[in-house]
């Protein structure tokens, strides 16, 4: 059986960054990708704006991904594409990874695992749209795949449900390719995409945005012929009497993303209900020693730059774990309140209390003049001011834990507080 020090599952931006970091830290690395090509979702994200934080340039998705792919190829890192992981098992020395591909089923041994499995889109059934099951209902990502990779226009006249960024970007993309986008319908009273995309994807092309509206029914036998839309109240319940029918051959759904952690489940990796990814420490190691998580599998990011960052950290620490394999198991769990949608990672390893750590978070509510606070045993230790916090915009910060006298058994509590002025 072939053995690697680090096996990375997923060849998107998180997995590529993890593989490069683990390789540079001296590990023998294998990347396993289920699709035919490396790059993950970036292959079809042909719009620009990627890499502003990391490279100071506005790159398209393929340009960003290929910088990492080219490095992986140059360094000769082993890659399996069109390959599915069917089973993960803990063994005495590490992990057993079963892979199926055109060569059959092969088992590999790994000292450490990096789970970089990304996220998946919510579907029509998960947002409870009633009616028949005609063709013409796509997630925004599927519509993007058809348009940008296959060169096939999936609709000529469509309605978009949900104002997530991919939906807004597809509104512009489909319009540029000659389709009519009749409107974007958002059930919440606030748009969920970035302001920049509302302006450049909708306003530029006179595409209307209807807030507090949703799609309630779909019509059509073979192909979608129309949808019913209605206004909704504060509890997102349709308001009777506000329904109307829109004729269209496409309904594009941009209604949210969920981290994908099916393979993590096989190893019994405990999950964080808020971030919907594995509970991790500051090394991005899950509560199963030797199993690391990063990118959108850990929590859904806005910017790929931070997907790469968490991938690099997970890869580097996975290489270190594979090299010495020890784990003290001692950590301090971060306590948070409901001012956060989530805070990642969720723990600090006790032996890292003198090191710097990166935190990612989202505020539960839109706030102005807020303060991110870390307190130790009830005493405020670290604060950082934010002029503005919005749930759709993920924040990233770095705390030098070594500046504080953190001891075993201490309580580390995080809060977002309002300040005056």
């Amino acid at each position: 059986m072939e053995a690697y020090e680090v096996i990375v599952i997923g060849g998107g931006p998180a997995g590529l960054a993890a593989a490069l970091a683990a390789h540079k830290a001296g590990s023998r690395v294998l990347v396993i990708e289920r699709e035919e090509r490396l790059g993950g979702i970036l292959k079809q994200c042909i719009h620009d704006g990627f890499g502003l934080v990391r490279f100071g340039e506005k790159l398209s998705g393929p340009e960003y991904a290929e910088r990492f792919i080219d490095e992986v190829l140059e360094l000769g890192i082993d890659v399996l594409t069109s390959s599915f992981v069917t089973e993960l098992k803990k063994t005495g020395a590490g992990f057993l990874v079963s892979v199926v591909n055109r060569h059959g089923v092969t088992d590999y041994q790994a000292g450490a695992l990096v789970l970089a499995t990304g996220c998946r889109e919510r579907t029509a059934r998960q947002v409870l749209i009633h009616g028949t099951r005609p063709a013409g209902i796509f997630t925004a990502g599927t519509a993007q795949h058809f348009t940008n990779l296959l060169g096939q226009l999936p609709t000529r006249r469509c309605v978009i449900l949900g104002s997530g960024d991919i939906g807004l970007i597809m509104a512009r993309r489909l319009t540029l390719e000659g389709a009519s986008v009749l409107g974007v319908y958002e059930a919440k009273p606030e748009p969920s995409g970035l302001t920049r995309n509302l302006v450049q994807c909708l306003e530029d092309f006179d595409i209307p945005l209807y807030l507090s509206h949703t799609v309630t029914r779909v019509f059509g036998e073979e192909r979608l012929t129309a949808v019913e839309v209605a206004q909704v109240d504060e509890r997102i319940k349709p308001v009777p009497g506000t329904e109307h029918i829109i004729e269209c051959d496409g309904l594009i759904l941009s209604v949210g993303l969920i981290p994908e952690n099916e393979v993590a489940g096989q190893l019994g990796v405990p999950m964080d209900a808020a971030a919907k990814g594995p509970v991790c420490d500051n090394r991005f190691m899950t509560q199963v020693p030797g199993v690391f998580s990063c990118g959108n599998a850990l929590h859904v990011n806005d910017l790929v730059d931070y997907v790469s960052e968490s991938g690099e950290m997970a890869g580097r620490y996975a290489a270190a774990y594979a090299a010495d394999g020890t784990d003290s198991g001692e950590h301090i769990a971060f306590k948070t309140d409901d001012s956060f949608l989530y805070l990642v990672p969720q723990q600090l390893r006790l032996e890292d209390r003198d090191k710097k750590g990166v935190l990612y978070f989202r505020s539960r509510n839109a706030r102005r003049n807020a303060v991110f606070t870390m307190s130790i045993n009830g005493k405020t230790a670290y604060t950082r001011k934010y002029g503005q916090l919005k749930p759709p915009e993920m924040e990233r910060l770095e705390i030098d834990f070594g500046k504080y006298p953190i001891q075993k058994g201490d309580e580390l509590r995080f809060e977002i507080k309002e300040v005056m002025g």
Partner: protein
Amino acid sequence: MSMKKLTCIVCPNGCSLTVLADGDSVRVTGNQCKRGEQFAKEELFHPMRTICTTVRTEFAAAPVLPVRVSAEIPKDRIKDVMEEINRVVIKEPVGRGDVVIADVLGLGVDVIATSSLLRYLKEEEKI
């Protein structure tokens, strides 16, 4: 005198701007910083945009290839540039950064490939 409402996209604050223009004199309100004023003036007099799209290829393994303009173009030329791009069919395995249309419509910007997909496929002997 004309009035226009804009949403500033310079930073995540997303200020709602009102621009009052009277001949050469322009007054911007609603901005929280200097950059908002600059943004409003540019948006009013010469709005610029980037186009990212695809071009057809003659290769079945990759029927389209992603491209973008090498620098921003005037917003009102988006449609014209799209028409030019839609005329192109790629016949060679061009790579990331290669020029697909030089100086498109005399605007001083090129249309460039943003992926080396065809190069990778060539190396794998798939095209």
